[in-house]
Structures are given as C-alpha cells and as structure tokens.
C-alpha cells in the first residue's frame, strides 16, 4: 500500500523532471548572453531553420561573465567593449574571419559607431589602440547621459548647465531636486572626470582629485536627496521618483517608453564637452564574440550572421529596446512612423570623436573603486 503510493509519487515527480533531463541533452551551440537580452523567437527560428539546438545561458554583469568563462566553455558570448578587450588580451577569443560572413560586414554598421570604433583602434598617447571589430560583431550600443523630468527641469537649464544639473539643489519651482546616480564607480567617476574637463581613459592623480572634489560638492549640495541605484532606475524614472539621473541611453529608451504619454516629460540629453576638453561622454557597445574553445565555429559564424540580418536585427532591437548597430535598421526604426520615433533622442546615438570607450585597465579600475568606497559612498 505504502510502497505503491511512493512509486506513484516518484512517477509524478519523475514526469516533471523528464522534460528537463531531455532538454539537458547535447547542444550544438552554447550562447552566453545577458539575461532578457534577446527575443527568444529569434533563437527558435534559427533552430528551426538550421535544424540545430541552441542553448542559451545568462549572466548579469561583465565581471560574473569573465569569472564563468574561466570555469566553463561557451561558444558565443556578448560582453561589453572593455570586457572584450580583456578577453582578447588573455587570448580567450577567436579573431573573426570576415569572409565567413554572408551578410555581415563592417560597412553595415551605423557610421558614427564605426568611426568611434576606429578611434578606439588608433593609438592615443600612451594607450595602445584596440581593434574591437577584429574580435566582435556589435550587438547593441549607446552612450551615458542624463535622463530628466522636463516638467521640473527645463531643457534650457540642462543645455546650459550640462552635468552640473546633477549638482543643483533646487528646481525652478523651489522644490528639492531628487538626484540619482548609477551605482558604479566607473560610470560616476568617468562622468565627473568629463564634467571637470578631463579624460577618463587615462586620468592622472590630480585629475582624479578634481573629479573627487566635483563629486563631493554634488554630495553636499544634494544631501539626502541623492540616491545610488542600478536597474531600479528603469522603473523608478517613469514613476517620477527622481528629477534627474545619470543613465545609459539604452535604459533611458525603456524608461521613456514606459511613460503613459509617449511624448511625456521624461527626456534624455548628453551634455556637451567642457570647453577645451576633448572628452564628452562614455560610449559603450555589447558585441558578439566567438570563443577560443568554440565547439562549432561554422555554426557560430552562421548564428552571428543571422542576428545581423535586417529583419532579425529589427525584431530584436524592438524587443530589447537597445539601439541597433545595423545602419539600415537604425534608419528604419527612427524614421517617421518607426518603432522608436517616440524616444528618438535616447535611441539615436550621435557619437562624436569626443566620445570614448572604457578600456581594460585593472589598475585604473582598482583606483576608481578605492576612491569610490573611501570618498564617495
């Protein structure tokens, strides 16, 4: 009697497990991606078209991705620019063979992204250039800027005071300004360096001291109305919890679209470079790479190529809400009647030569984190 029940229970639970066990079977391609960073229908279509099985695994930060790459093997990964450089320097990535792509070529990229990547590839001062396009095919891109509530902060004020708007204690209507900074040493310090007229790629100690004092003024001015957040900004900005935030353009697109009224008061703006400085803001790009240990290089090329085709890239950018690097799609979705017409100012990344990528630099990373913990947080 009892054993019968046990057997019944085992069958019941076993029944739940079985689909899991079978799906754990061999995958033809292992795709290591950010969580919620691809339209899953695209993967299913690719699987059906090629008759293969693609397994996707997800990570939440570049740092955890780098750790997991140490312990396990993946075929295609989507790190950010500086993490790609780290992987490339450590010899974890394959150099791409452009002849293996049927559709993709670097000519298809948005011109301003292409020129920013060309700038990255050229040596600058003591910094050696990094040709990211040799290792990676851009997947999304964007820039760091300010997302603000234009019902309390006027566009004129933002345009004249730039990053300084983060340090202004009162709004025009006399209320306290609610400010939010992205909780990351790198992003906040880079902004502070640009705001004080310095470059953030290779800052000197005095330049860092300038940035620290810039941030300390911000802290004293804003006081208790200052918050440090990360993904929460996505939902809290449309809820009007803050008046102004330091934000990625990709996240800003989401916040603007979440607003009930599409031409609502939330806007995105990238302040101009301080006079005499050749640094405006940080540009970033997440890109598809093939790992050194890739089990099926042919299929990896096919997969990346598939993701860059017009129809697929269009569906994907509309699903994720991040700017596409494919020029034909970029033009279509921002044109009149396009999907992103409503939030053009955040979707369109008009990169200029004064926008720079972060670099792989462990020394600088440690310095910034130390300063951040000891002086700012």
């Amino acid at each position: 009697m009892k054993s019968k029940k046990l057997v019944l229970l085992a069958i019941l639970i076993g029944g739940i497990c079985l689909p899991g066990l079978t799906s754990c079977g061999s995958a033809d391609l292992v795709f290591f991606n950010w969580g919620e960073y691809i339209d899953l229908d695209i993967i299913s279509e690719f699987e059906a078209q090629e008759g293969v099985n693609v397994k996707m695994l997800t990570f939440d930060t570049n740092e955890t991705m780098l750790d997991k790459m140490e312990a396990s093997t993946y075929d295609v990964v989507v790190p950010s620019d500086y993490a790609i450089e780290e992987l490339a320097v450590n010899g974890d990535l394959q150099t791409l063979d452009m002849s293996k792509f049927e559709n993709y070529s670097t000519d298809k990229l948005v011109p301003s992204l292409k020129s920013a990547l060309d700038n990255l590839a050229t040596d600058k001062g003591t910094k050696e250039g990094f040709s990211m396009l040799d290792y990676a095919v851009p997947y999304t891109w964007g820039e760091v800027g300010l997302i603000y509530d234009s019902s309390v902060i006027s566009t004129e004020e933002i345009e004249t005071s730039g990053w300084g708007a983060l340090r202004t204690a009162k709004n025009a209507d006399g209320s306290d300004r609610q400010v939010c900074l992205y909780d990351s040493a790198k992003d906040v310090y880079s902004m502070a360096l640009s705001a004080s007229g310095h470059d953030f790629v290779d800052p000197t100690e005095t330049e860092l001291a300038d940035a620290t004092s810039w941030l300390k003024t911000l802290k004293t001015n804003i006081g208790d109305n200052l918050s440090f957040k990360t993904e929460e900004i996505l939902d809290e900005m449309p809820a009007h919890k803050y008046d102004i935030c330091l934000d990625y353009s990709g996240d800003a697109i989401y916040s603007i679209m979440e607003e009930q009224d599409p031409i609502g008061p939330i806007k995105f703006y990238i302040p101009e470079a301080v006079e005499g400085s050749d640094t405006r803001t940080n540009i970033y790009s997440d890109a598809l790479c093939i790992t050194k240990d890739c089990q099926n290089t042919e299929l990896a090329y096919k997969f990346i190529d598939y993701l860059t085709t017009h129809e697929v890239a269009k569906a994907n950018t509309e699903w994720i809400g991040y700017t596409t690097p494919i020029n034909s799609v970029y033009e279509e979705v921002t044109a009149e009647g396009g999907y992103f017409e409503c939030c053009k100012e955040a979707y369109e990344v008009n990169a200029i030569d004064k926008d720079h990528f972060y670099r792989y630099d462990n020394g600088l990373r440690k310095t910034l984190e130390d300063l951040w913990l000891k002086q700012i947080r």
Partner: protein
Amino acid sequence: MVRTRKRKELHSSRNWKGGALYNIYVGVILLFFYAPIISIMVFSFNSGSSVTNFESFSFVWYEELFKNDTLMAALGTTVSIAFIATVVSTIIGTLGSITLANMTKTHRLFTNFILNANNIPVVNPDIVTAVSLMVLFMAVNAVLPMGYTTMLLAHIAFCTPYVVIQVYPKVLRLDQNLVEAAMDLGASRKQAIYKVMLPELRPAIFSGALMAFTMSFDDFIISYFVGGQEMNISIYVYSMRRFNPVVNALSSVIFLVIGLTFVLIEVIRLRQTNLEDDDNNFRRNKKNTKKEGLL
C-alpha cells in the same frame, strides 16, 4: 489524563475570552506571510508588464512561460536536481544517522567528531562552500567537467547534513527494545530496520527530505559556481537584466504545485492515522475481550 483536561480548559477559556483578538492576530500574521505570494499571483494575470498597476486580466505571461525554452530548461534542471539530490541525501543521511546513533555509546569521541563535522557545512557561509567546491571541481576538470553532474554532487553534499540533523536525534530517542523485541520474535536485522525502525523514524526522515528539497530548489550561489553550462531557476532570475513578469507566472505555478502536494500529503496522513486508530481500537477491543475471557 488530568493534564490533557487542564489544557483543554485553558484553551477553551482563552477562546471564549478573546476570540476576536486571537483571530485578528492570526489573520494579520497569515496575511503578512501570504501577502507577497498573493500579490505575485495577482500580477501574474496582468496583461501588461508592470508590477505596480494592474491593466487587465490575461494569461499572456503563462503563455510566455511555456514558450520560454531557456526558462523551462532551467526549471527542469532545478526540479530534477532537487529530486535526485533529495532522494540520495535522504538515503545517505538516514543510514548515516542510524549507524552514528548505534556507535554513540561505544565510540563517543568519533561520533561527536562526525556530528560536528556534519554541522560545519550547515553553518558555513554558502559562498565559502561554493568557491571551495568550484576550486575542487576545477582541479578535476579533466575527468569531471563542470555541468549537471558537478551541480548534482554539490547539491547532494550540502543537503545530506540537513537530513542527519533531522534524523539523528530521533534515532537516539528510539526505543532500542523495539528493535530487539522484533529480532527476538524472529525478524532478521534487515526486517527489523525496515519494519520497525524506519516506520518509527518516518516523520524525521520526511522533514529531513523536505528540508533537503527546499535547500536544493532555491540554491543560487553554489549552483552558480559549480554549474558550468547548467542553469537553474535561481541563476536565471538573478541574471535577468530587467524584470520579466514570466517569473510571476512561474512562481505562482511552483507555489500551486507545492501547495497541492502538501494538501495531498495531509490527506494521505489523515487517512493513515484514521486507519491506524481503527486498527488500534480493534486490537484493544480484542485484547479486552481476551482478558475478560481469561478472567
């Protein structure tokens, strides 16, 4: 007999005096426990992706859930690992507890040592366990690549101590005479264990297994470090770049399944106790009639 009557009186008098207050108190506590689950269930039927305002009723997130292959695979991994780890660790833990309890009198030092060693993984921070397991598995990477197997081994390793903690004290408290009596009456050692000891231990084994299952089901850190290419639900949820409401639907389904399982178990248990009571009454009556007959 007297004691039970007293307790009954106390209980009824309290009920009579402050019934409303008592009910409100229990209600508030229960609400506090279940409000998060209720809200996640309500929002799993939201047609929009917001978790703050409810637009309209729809099953769209349930549809998305079953279409999401990555999440379904993660669910499969979680459930199958939890199930296998529970079964294996319950067997190891129970047998270990019985042996340790039998050795307690003769080898005091050794059993104490083992029991303390057993407690360390329980109090040890998960992150330390996770990193050390990762280092170990990396060392044997050539023979045993990281993946499903390493995750399963890790889960068995951290689940077993919980079973021992539940079962060992119960074995100690077990009346040794019962087993001896069974063997006196002709039961083999095996039969004594299966027919006398294990049924006595059943509640403890059951709660140990339950604990092991829960520990395994929601483990994140250890799975994250030793899972390699394998992903469970916790890893999936933690690595979401932005919140995806299919998690609401998934959580509701999991809660429903677990809730129903508990109801089922309760029903089975009630039935069994009823049967046993009937059985006991029957025996008692028989005994009484026999006694009377003797007299």
